[in-house]
């Protein structure tokens, strides 16, 4: 275990823009911290808020949502729906007593590998400042959800 807290972040990417931006960051060998693990969706509009809560309640400390810039959605305007859900998710988290800053929405076109890497770097630092999420321990009090207490998620990651 290192002394610095290393957060785990799940990132949702759009097949047409941000996933390709991540590919581009790779091709260009742009370095960013390894704390983010990406999931490919066809569109940010596919993002079911459940996915975010599932990730946070299963051991992730933060969630990154990415999509095409407004007006550039490959499915015409579905990224606007993602935007609405994002705002809803943040509000819900706040009501639950969780820092809304753990979830972040970033628009990144297929050409913006550098930008995506920068945003990831910033987000990792922001989540690091927030500290471990420790959900549901934080909400329900420790020991109430047995199976998650046994969850090795934290230990599994350096």
């Amino acid at each position, binding site marked *: 275990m290192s002394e610095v807290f290393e957060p785990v972040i799940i990132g949702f990417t759009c097949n047409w823009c941000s996933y390709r931006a991540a590919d581009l960051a790779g091709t260009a060998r742009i370095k960013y911290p390894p704390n983010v693990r990406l999931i490919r969706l066809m569109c940010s509009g*596919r993002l*079911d808020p459940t*996915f975010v809560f*599932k990730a946070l309640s299963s051991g992730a400390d933060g969630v990154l949502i990415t999509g095409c810039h407004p007006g550039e959605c490959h499915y015409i305007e579905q990224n606007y729906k993602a935007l609405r859900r994002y705002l809803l998710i943040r509000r819900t988290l706040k009501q639950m007593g969780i820092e809304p800053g753990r979830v972040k929405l970033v628009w990144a076109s297929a050409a913006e590998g550098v930008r995506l890497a920068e945003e990831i770097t910033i987000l990792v630092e922001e989540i690091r400042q927030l500290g471990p999420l420790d959900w549901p321990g934080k909400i329900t009090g420790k020991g109430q959800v047995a199976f998650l207490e046994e969850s*090795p998620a934290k230990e599994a990651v*350096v």
Partner: protein
Amino acid sequence: MTSQDNPEKDQGKRIGVYVCHCGTNIAGTVDVEDVRDWALEKLGDRGVVISRDYKFMCSSLGQELIEKDIQEEKLDRVVVAACSPHLHEKTFRTACSKAGLNPYLCELVSIREQVSWVHSDKVAATAKAKAVLSGGVERVIHHQPLDPLHVPIQPATLVVGGGIAGIQAALEIADSGFPVYMVEREPSIGGHMAQFDKTFPTLDCAACILTPKMVDVGSHNNITLLTWSEVVRVEGYVGNFTVTIKKKPRYVDEELCTGCGICVEKCPKKVIDEVFEAGLGYRKAVYTPFPQSVPKFPVIDYENCTYFQKGTCKACEKFCPTGAIDFNQKEEFITIQVGNIILATGYDLFDGRRVTQYGYGRLANVYTSLEFERLSNAAGPTNGDIVLRDGVTHPASVGIIHCVGSRDRNYNNYCSVICCMQGLKFAHLVKERTGATVYNFYIDMRTAYKAYDEFYQRVLEEGTLFVRGKVAEVTDAARLPGEEGKLIIQTEDTLVGKQRRIPVDMVILSIGLEPRADSREVAKLFGISCSSDGWFTEKHPKLDPVATMTEGIFIAGAAQGPKDIPTSVSQGAAAAARVLGRIQQGEIELEPVRATIDESRCSGCRICNNLCPFNAILFHSDRMVSEINPALCQGCGTCVAACPAGAISGTVFSNEQILSQIEGLLLLNVAPMGGTG
């Protein structure tokens, strides 16, 4: 949730894991052997029965390795940890297919673009590679065997827009023996090109090369030409679109009209022609836009017709030899069936009045490029005589300003492509016809493409003066001797580093191109997308420039972005080739990334209905359930995420697949003891 919640669901899975070195691309940063061993050890209870590594998985030897395992080890799922799925997903799916495994039971996870190339700490990169692989394994468990969708293709094609791009596309298809419907909003086809005098760089007369093609369209047996018409509704999907077209009333019976032109001659009402003559000339209230119009039938302009506005006149009717004038004509709606659609709706011109410092609209002798095209056109309002607004004076000096409305964040960021060459063409024409001194004011001279720079050289040779500097203002406020009564162009000559004031008689603004004012509505009508500027978005900017994200809808010409004539023609032909390929195959295969509704769980709330941008969701009011048309669905998954009853599921990106992948990425599947260091 971990697997103990639902133990039976993973039963009998035999998963093969293949970790690629990609030479040292991956192996240099990720401990590939460690990942390989870890997968077998820790993911064994998830169904991983084989785990191998190989130098280059995508090579034929690597693929054969997978194929052999599938057959000999009876694998029913495959996970390859290598590069981005955008690069080799197809490769590995094909390999599975060859070995008899449904290709959709293969998952490719990226440990190159997303791991080895972006991280340098080997321990951390290896740990992340494991997590990414684990996500893939969890996901692949929920993959279903899928078949591509097969859709039959109707042979007829709709071409929207009768400019040069649409004309080229329509002729290519019609000449190949297939039916084409061409819809044009204006009374005649021809588009902007019909308004031009000469075309760069060869200075062919635009009419000479365009009119034969227009005549071909008008007389082609395979082309049904619908001018003065607009598409109002598009239903259906690739292979089988149902399109409703509104035919605006011409008040002229096309069956009876011979195009003799007597009605036009006799009409007493003259109005300024804002469209074809760019406001520089007149037409009658009954008119054809220009003499070579196709079709030759005139149109009565309702707004300006004396009979329609005042109730008397009917001069046209009185003199028509065939009784073709029909004041009672109503708009008609025509429905057609087509397999593919090509949108070639063209562009609008930037409104020069917006750059107030150039004085267009305030200072008489400032012209726009389109006005100058008409002014210099032998068939235009002055018969090609280049004169000031007074109609008689020839300019002794002319300034041509480039980049008006383009490359300017106050208006449009993009380069309008044609303006440099257009400015050079104008310089040549002015010089040739008037002998005036001509200045070109430019920021950068962009004359890429065949024979363009040679034309620049020619214009230099002719003695046109070039000033590098974006013009600051055009004013009539004289300050220095010699400026009285002139238009003064004030600019920095950036090559000299001094401000200059150059008095001229005439200013021509090389106006940029803009998307059609209604491009967003048109895009919505056809279910395609626009860039933030408003240009139609192609499927891929380099490798698929004429297709769109919507199957069966293609784009050509300047509707996709600023273009000159040669490129528009190429795109028209390219779009036609794509359509012809489809027609000749008779059917197409579509990726099975689709959403479906479980009717038994659908509550009929209709939330999904309005979310779909492709109108793929139908509501059956009799049964109070929604249904998704698989051929229309493009698989974005928005409805899946929105369904409050969880009745909609998406193939390839189902809830189970994604939720399991989250678990995998968080390593919830790894036995509690198993730290990975």
